[in-house]
């Protein structure tokens, strides 16, 4: 079973990126709009003052003794100097003939404008200029004369203004982007919050908690929550069924086997012929093996089930070992074997007490079984680096060195155990339990003396 989800992308990241993108586009748009508007305003204000200048020159045009003449007012050009230190050019024409000013200024006949003022942007003496041309009719003795006044100014001031505004607009755009980005990130976070809340509330639940999710969720998540609730209901049902099945199976197998064994023992007392007794003994042995195997299979099924849903609590390993030992003591004494526990108070570990007890009793059971009559089984609880170690020592034949690697595989039995009853699940169970707790199982033979040693390594909490 994979616990990792198949992750592709993230709603929050996608949402954040999209919002950032939108913010960037809007900031750029804002910059362009401010600049366009600023340019318009700058041009307009320059146009206005050029217009005023041209008008005042035009107003000074008059006919004197049959000739068109202009008396340029001082203010006409000095007003341009008041707002900027741009270069100023002007020209006065009468009926298309040059009268005074800068003769080679460009013409503005084709330019658009308002009323009789026409504006163009052009070049003169190596600089860009903005120019206005205004026209007025004077009447001469020989008929009307059209006087055209053009006033032009270089664009230095306008450029400087625009540069200044562009710097400010850039700051504005950047500030806008930052603000929008912060809001975007916050929005993305708040958008995925219900999902996170749901995920947290589901993953925080204990293994047995399969109630339906009741907390309110946004409408978009309702189908997911409904599906989840339905799924959990089905899971609960199937779990209940399999627990019932395990209990039922244990009962159905063990009880007849117990009856069968009793019957076989009764029969054994009655028969006297050695071959019949041998056959019955063989039968009792087989029944024991089946009963034990059934027990271990059920244990294993239980362990497999529980390791997926550990019920973690603080456990004092010494107390737990003592309890287990007391439970198995009658069995050991029946076989004339002594069980002893050594150890001091140690850091507690986090784990599922039922599982650890189950694993320990399986190992102890093995130890009792393989130890020769009259010998001892010793349990120690010690402390090694970050590990709390529970070791079981027997005085049996030990493990065959070539077996050690594969003994924990399911249904694998060591060479030295062929004449003893067993299913080969005990070590498997012990290993699965230690691994479920983040630890490991170590098998070794005792040095100096005969016997095997099985050590549970649990991480201390």
């Amino acid at each position, binding site marked *: 079973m994979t616990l990792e989800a198949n992750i592709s992308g993230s709603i929050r990241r996608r949402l954040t990126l999209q919002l950032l993108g939108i913010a960037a586009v809007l900031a750029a748009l804002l910059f362009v709009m401010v600049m366009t508007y600023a340019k318009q305003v700058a041009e307009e204000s320059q146009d206005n003052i050029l217009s005023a200048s041209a008008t005042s020159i035009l107003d000074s045009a008059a006919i004197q003794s049959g000739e068109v*003449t*202009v*008396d*340029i*007012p*001082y*203010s*006409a*050009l*000095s007003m*341009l*100097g*008041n707002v900027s*230190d*741009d*270069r*100023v*050019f002007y020209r*006065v024409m009468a009926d298309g003939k040059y*009268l*005074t*000013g*800068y003769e080679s200024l460009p013409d503005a006949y084709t330019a658009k404008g308002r009323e009789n003022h026409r504006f163009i942007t052009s070049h003169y*003496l*190596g*600089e860009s200029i903005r120019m206005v041309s205004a026209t007025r009719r004077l009447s001469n003795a020989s008929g009307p004369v059209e006087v055209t006044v053009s006033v032009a100014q270089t664009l*230095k001031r306008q450029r400087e203004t625009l540069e200044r505004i562009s710097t400010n607009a850039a700051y504005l755009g950047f500030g806008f982007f930052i603000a929008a980005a912060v809001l975007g990130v916050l929005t993305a976070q708040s958008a995925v919050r219900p999902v996170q809340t749901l995920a947290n509330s589901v993953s925080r639940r204990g293994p047995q908690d399969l109630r339906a999710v009741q907390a309110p969720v946004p409408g978009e998540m309702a189908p997911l929550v409904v599906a989840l609730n339905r799924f959990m209901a089905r899971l609960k049902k199937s779990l209940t069924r399999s627990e019932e099945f395990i209990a039922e199976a244990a009962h159905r197998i063990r009880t007849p086997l117990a009856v069968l064994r009793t019957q076989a023992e009764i029969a054994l007392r009655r028969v006297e012929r050695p071959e019949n007794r041998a056959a019955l003994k063989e039968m009792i042995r087989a029944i024991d093996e089946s009963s034990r195997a059934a027990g271990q299979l059920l244990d294993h099924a239980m362990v497999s089930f529980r390791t997926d849903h550990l019920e973690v609590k603080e456990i004092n390993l010494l107390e737990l070992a003592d309890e287990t030992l007391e439970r198995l003591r009658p069995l050991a004494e029946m076989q004339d074997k002594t069980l002893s526990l050594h150890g001091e108070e140690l850091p507690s570990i986090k784990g599922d007490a039922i599982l650890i007890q189950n694993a320990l009793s399986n190992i102890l059971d093995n130890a009792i079984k393989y130890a020769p009559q009259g010998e001892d089984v010793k349990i120690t609880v010690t402390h090694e680096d970050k590990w709390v170690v529970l070791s079981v020592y027997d005085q049996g034949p030990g493990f065959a060195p070539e077996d050690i690697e594969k003994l924990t595989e399911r249904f694998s039995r060591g060479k030295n155990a062929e004449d003893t009853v067993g299913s080969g699940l005990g070590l498997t169970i012990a290993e699965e339990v230690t691994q479920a707790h983040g630890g490991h199982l170590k098998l070794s033979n005792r040095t100096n003396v005969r016997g095997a040693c099985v050590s549970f390594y649990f991480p201390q909490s």
Partner: protein
Amino acid sequence: MRILLFPSVLIVLLVSLLSARAYEIEQHKVFPASQEAQTLRIISNSDIDIFAPMVEAFQRKYPSVSIDYTVVSSTELMKALYEERQVFDVAISSAMDLQVKLANDGFTKPHSSSVAGLMPDWARWRDHVFAFTQEPASVVYSKSAFEGLEVPTSRQNLISTLRNNPDRFLNKVGTYDIRQSGLGFLFATQDARTSDTFWRLNEVMGSLNAKLYCCSADMISDITTGDLAVAYNVLGSYASARAAKDPDVGILELEDFTTLMLRSAIIPAGAEQPEIAGDFIDHLITASWSEEGADYYPYPKLNHSEVAPNLSLRAIRLGPGLLVYQDNLKRQHFLQEWQNAIIQQ
């Protein structure tokens, strides 16, 4: 061969003379460098005597620059640069309108000065025109000629004094010939712009058969010799130098208004040493506008605020307004009107 050669040599000589000397030089002096390396060519309408301390102070800072100093009238300066495009590195003139016209019409190079911060904004135009003096247009008179008369304090007073004493002042009144002098033209146009009394004063001076001069120095000389009793619109800075030596010379700054001219420097577009020219202009700015001033600065102390402490002082503003009287039509009209007023025979 010889017959052919002679006229052609003559033509070459003539052409070179014409092209080199079409504008009229008044004075010329070379200030040699202690170790010769480069030459800075200055064209100016400031007299050598007055301006020399500024040049010498510059050469103390830049000993490897020799300075070729040409003095011309302000109109000749305009002619040299605007029409003949003579090569000079710095042009110094009191005719602000001509300096602005040169800058406006593209005859100057910009100079981004490192000491521009010392100057008020109104003392420069477009990084092209840099003013370094403020000089009043004054009335200079001979104290002895005014004996028994009250010294006039305004144009109004001056007009009535002249009008009431025609015998005393006939042929003894002098002013600029504004057809010749760019500075005279500038003063006259600014006067005309400010007050109508200018025209009445010209009428009176005309009726007294006013003498017309090219330059302030000549007017001041004629005051000291007694040829003139009073001279109108004389550069006060020149006059005070003379007044210090001659107790008979009096200087008046009229109370109705006194025009303040800013003498300015530009770098002509054809300058061959624009960098040294820039250094020279920075030197002028530092000498004139820095708070402590310079002991060799030969002009009246500058006033940093735009509004003078004395309200009658009117500083001429650098800017395109000055182009107005340089307009051909306007200039012709003005000169015509002026001639009608002052030349009455």
